[in-house]
């Protein structure tokens, strides 16, 4: 790069000064309108006739402190489940979407199976799959049946794998056929073409919706508590039953949001980056 010694003209300096004034102005306006709206909200809520009762049963600091360890312990289960189920569902989704792209009569059964899987598990309510896996499968009394937690995780992986498979497939189909032709013309095999040309482009394109589904999964992993394991929401429920106070739910809710913030932030960032890239074209 050649260093440039550029002295801005008076017009450019005026323009810059004007822009600075405008920026200061908009920050002030934003701060003022936020303050007014916040004040109005606080007045409306705290002035409501039932505010005192609600504050007692939902926002009790002492109960919140007491419930926190249990709820946090439950949340740790959510986190572990989320990590394993997200990885599992991404792997299943990718594998199934790839199986669905295979051409030729040899692969008909594989293709049919993969298609049947996505149809079935996208149609089935998660609760039903969870019950079948956590209550039905142990009922068989087979040797070596994994613990309920693993079975519940498996149910989540299968259901979310079905959704993610469709997201991956949309990505794969969005890569233009001319890219395949270019890769094949270089002598790359079908597999190499998928691995080095199609999938990298496809995954980049569908990263935002994939992450969005992971955020949704985070809220659904707690459903395994229907079968016994104690997650954050279930821990809050137990604490609520003991104290006849709903504050533990609020604690769980806050923890969930805190947990989701980084994930959502990453999703937003990836989406923004994808949009920029699209715009650059």
């Amino acid at each position, binding site marked *: 790069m050649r260093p440039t010694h550029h002295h801005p003209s008076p017009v450019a300096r005026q323009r810059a000064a004007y822009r600075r004034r405008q920026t200061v102005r908009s920050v002030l306006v934003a701060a003022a309108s936020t303050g007014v709206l916040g004040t109005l909200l606080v007045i409306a809520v705290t002035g409501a006739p039932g505010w005192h009762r609600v504050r007692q049963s939902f926002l009790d600091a002492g109960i919140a402190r007491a419930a926190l360890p249990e709820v946090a312990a439950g949340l740790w289960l959510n986190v572990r489940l989320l990590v394993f189920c997200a990885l599992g569902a991404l792997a299943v989704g990718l594998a199934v979407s790839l199986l669905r792209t295979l051409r030729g009569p040899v692969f008909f059964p594989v293709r049919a199976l993969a298609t049947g899987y996505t149809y079935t598990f996208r149609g089935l309510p998660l609760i039903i799959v969870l019950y079948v896996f956590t209550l039905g499968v142990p009922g068989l009394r087979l040797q070596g049946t994994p613990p309920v937690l693993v079975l519940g995780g498996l149910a989540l992986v299968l259901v979310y794998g079905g959704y993610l498979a469709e997201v991956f497939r949309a990505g794969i189909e969005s890569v233009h056929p001319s890219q395949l032709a270019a890769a094949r*013309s270089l002598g790359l095999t079908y597999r190499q073409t998928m691995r080095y040309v199609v999938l990298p482009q496809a995954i980049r394109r569908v990263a935002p919706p994939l992450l969005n589904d992971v955020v949704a999964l985070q809220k659904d992993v707690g459903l395994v508590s229907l079968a016994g394991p104690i997650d954050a929401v279930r821990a809050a429920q137990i604490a609520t039953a003991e104290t006849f106070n709903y504050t533990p739910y609020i604690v769980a809710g806050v923890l969930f949001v805190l947990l989701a913030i980084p994930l959502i932030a990453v999703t937003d960032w990836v989406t923004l980056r994808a949009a920029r890239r699209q715009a650059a074209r």
Partner: protein
Amino acid sequence: MTPPVLRCRALRKAYGGQVVLDNLDLDVAEHEVVALIGASGSGKSTLLRCVNLLEDLDDGTIHLDGDHITDPRVDPDLVRRRMGIVFQAYNLFPHLRVLDNITLAPIRVHRRPRAEAEAQARDLLARVGLAEKAEDYPDRLSGGQQQRVAIVRALVNSPRLLLLDEVTSALDPELVGEVLTMIRDLKAEGMTMVLATHEMGFAREVADRVCFLDGGRVLEEGPPERVLGEPTEPRTRQFLRRIVEAGRL
């Protein structure tokens, strides 16, 4: 006697009911440059794609260096490694840097060491004046630069035969020159090429032989001065007259 690099016999290809190639014959000798001309839709691209085995033929045979490559027992991936093809729309891989676009096949297909493949790629890029673009992504390059990268990418396999499909028609006029220079240099080095083109001036200059495609076959062929200067077939004359009217001769 050595066989021609490319020998096409009685090629037939139809899309639905529309016959695009109809009993087409074409031979290309070593170091020969053949230009395919013809109206839009006359099957130039289809012929090149069939030769590269990107399309299945309905009938006919293609031999490369005497090997029957349209034999169903032949692995198309192995055949394609012996040819290069460049498309009108460049078709570079947008997620890979220029350097990685070029070294993908050498590293993954030919299993060559990365350092060696990259050295060769940089060398080729330098020869076409694109050395400093190696680390850039394709969308940062101009059309002419992208097309030259695409040609380098096709050359890195050391192909016996290079197929070029209207490699200049997506380019602004001032960018055409740099791509044509590159093809001229390739001819000087003895590369065997088949190129589809709408640029009659270029066909005249670079081709040893011009083939006029019409009705799914080679209707008229010969040295450029003869086919473009004094065509014998009425259809060829009509085609060239339209080209002249469009100001492209």
